[in-house]
């Protein structure tokens, strides 16, 4: 549990970075601080590990005022990922990752063994271990930064715009990776970004901040999208808002059509949705191919499961050449399909998101 109690910060020179911030960050949650440049996101995050000090108010970690904890021991228990990786240029990848464990007093060998585990956990090949940071791509450096923060298994992880320096494709990869990691390791993660999409994708809770360091709304992504607290939050999420809100409604009760039986050639005719199209299903390999009259094949890449979000089901339907997405049954075998008609009842605009 991380608690901000009426925290304000005025830097020497008079810049008001934070104004009266109250925030409760639950243990094991993924909290994203989002807002435009200069609104005090970094400042508030750095207060958690005492890299910045409040002018007034307190920051508590597990009920204890951080001002009363020795900075070094506080920080050794908090993983920190910086925007550009913040790696040590003079240490190899593996020694970068082993740093915190070394500081905690582990011998080199044990620290490195742990570091190899962390390297693998962030999806990097062990062959990179002996390289120096300058020999890595930006995305790899960023992963090493995450691995270094994870290696000592701290209960709290702070990430300051960890993905802003990499290209959009790598960014998306890293975001998925962090989501997967969080599902796996359940740390208390605080992430700073100015990208509202990233915030909506990653956060359990999102704190939207405005210039001057004022908290605008602290809520789940769904609430932020459907019930923005004010015009400021509303304007941040206005783009694709209706479509995004579909991410938060799940597909539970809906109609679908059972797949017709296989023909003599083992293929299933999809004439009901697209004349001339066939489906070639391999339940063993769990692969499926759409085949048109000319014999050209299109893999059915995305399939839908009960409980998926309406957004991903809609995407699967729209991406299918026959405008139908295969529905996986409880055994993960495609036995039916859904079309736009099946989804239509779920595409009602959210009453508040429509504004």
């Amino acid at each position, binding site marked *: 549990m991380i608690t901000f109690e009426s925290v304000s910060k005025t830097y020497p020179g008079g810049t008001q970075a934070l104004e009266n911030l109250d925030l409760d960050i639950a243990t094991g949650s993924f909290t994203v601080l989002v807002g435009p440049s200069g609104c005090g996101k970094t400042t508030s995050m750095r207060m958690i590990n005492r890299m910045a000090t409040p002018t007034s108010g307190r920051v508590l970690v597990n009920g204890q005022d951080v001002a009363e904890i020795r900075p*070094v021991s506080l920080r*050794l228990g908090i993983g920190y990922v910086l925007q550009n990786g913040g790696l040590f240029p003079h240490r190899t990848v593996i020694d970068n990752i082993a*740093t915190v464990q070394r500081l905690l007093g582990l011998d080199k060998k044990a620290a490195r*063994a742990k570091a190899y585990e962390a390297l693998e956990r962030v999806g*990097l*090949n*062990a062959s990179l*271990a002996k390289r*120096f940071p300058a020999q890595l791509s930006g995305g790899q450096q960023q992963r090493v930064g995450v691995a270094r923060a994870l290696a000592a298994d701290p209960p709290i992880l702070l990430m300051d715009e960890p993905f802003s320096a990499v290209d959009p494709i790598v960014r998306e990869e890293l975001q998925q990776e962090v989501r997967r990691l969080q599902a796996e390791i359940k740390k208390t993660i605080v992430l700073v970004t100015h990208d509202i999409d990233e915030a909506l994708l990653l956060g359990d809770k999102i704190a939207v901040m405005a210039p001057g360091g004022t908290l605008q709304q602290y809520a789940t992504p769904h609430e932020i999208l459907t019930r923005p607290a004010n015009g400021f939050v509303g304007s941040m999420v206005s783009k694709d808002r209706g479509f995004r809100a579909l991410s938060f409604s799940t597909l539970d009760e809906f109609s679908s059509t059972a797949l017709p039986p296989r023909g003599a050639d083992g293929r299933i005719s999809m004439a009901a949705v697209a004349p001339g199209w066939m489906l070639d299903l391999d339940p063993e390999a769990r692969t499926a191919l759409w085949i048109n009259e000319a014999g050209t094949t299109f893999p059915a890449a995305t399939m839908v499961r009960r409980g998926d979000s309406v957004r991903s089901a809609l995407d699967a339907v729209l991406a299918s050449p026959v405008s139908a997405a295969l529905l996986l049954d409880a055994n993960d075998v495609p036995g039916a399909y859904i079309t736009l008609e099946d989804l239509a009842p779920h595409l009602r605009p959210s009453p508040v998101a429509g504004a």
Partner: protein
Amino acid sequence: MNWLLANPDRVRELTVEHLYLSIIPVVAGLIIALALGLVFGNRRRARNIITTAASAVFTIPSLALFVVLPSILGTQILDPVNVLVALSMYSAALLVRTVFDALDAVPAQVLSAAEAIGYSPARRRLLVDLPLAIAPLAAGLRVAAVTNVSLVSVGAVIGIGGLGQLFTSGYQRDYPDQILAGIIMILLLAFVLDRLIAVAGRVMTPWLHVSLKIVAPAGTEPATGNPASAASQSGGGK
């Protein structure tokens, strides 16, 4: 050249003396400068005082220092300690500025990262700041070493100058060949020391000399290597 080849023993003896008269002060000066730099590098006032003092030391003529030191240290006028102390002072004065500058040049974000992940200030200074300052330090050290090699010869005037004694005696006896021998040996010595420090600096900074061309296909796909075996391989490394 004739004299040089005809007196190998004398040349060796003088070279050895010259060598220790120039190396000991550089090492002592480096230690003093590093200590001052690491301790006071972040304190503005102390830094100003130190750099001012260093400039002042450097403006004292070496000969004057050689002559004055015995009365301060209580040594004999012909004691090599005088030369060693004087040259150590010059080396420290020359190097302290380099140390400050080299430490300043370490990227602030690396230091901030180190602090944020839990380095104590002292540990960070030694394990992050210092290694990252090696390259500019080595450059400064080369200058100090070469300067020292030439300053040692001034000691010849008070009888302790290594190869510099070839100048005084060659001059007194009007024997240019001996002076030439001294110049050759001193140049050689300076060159060798300079190269040695340069090479040592390179060896100590492998990260600055790696090929940046390795573009790994290995990067982002899932790790295939067995981490346990990889870890045990690496255990004895470095």
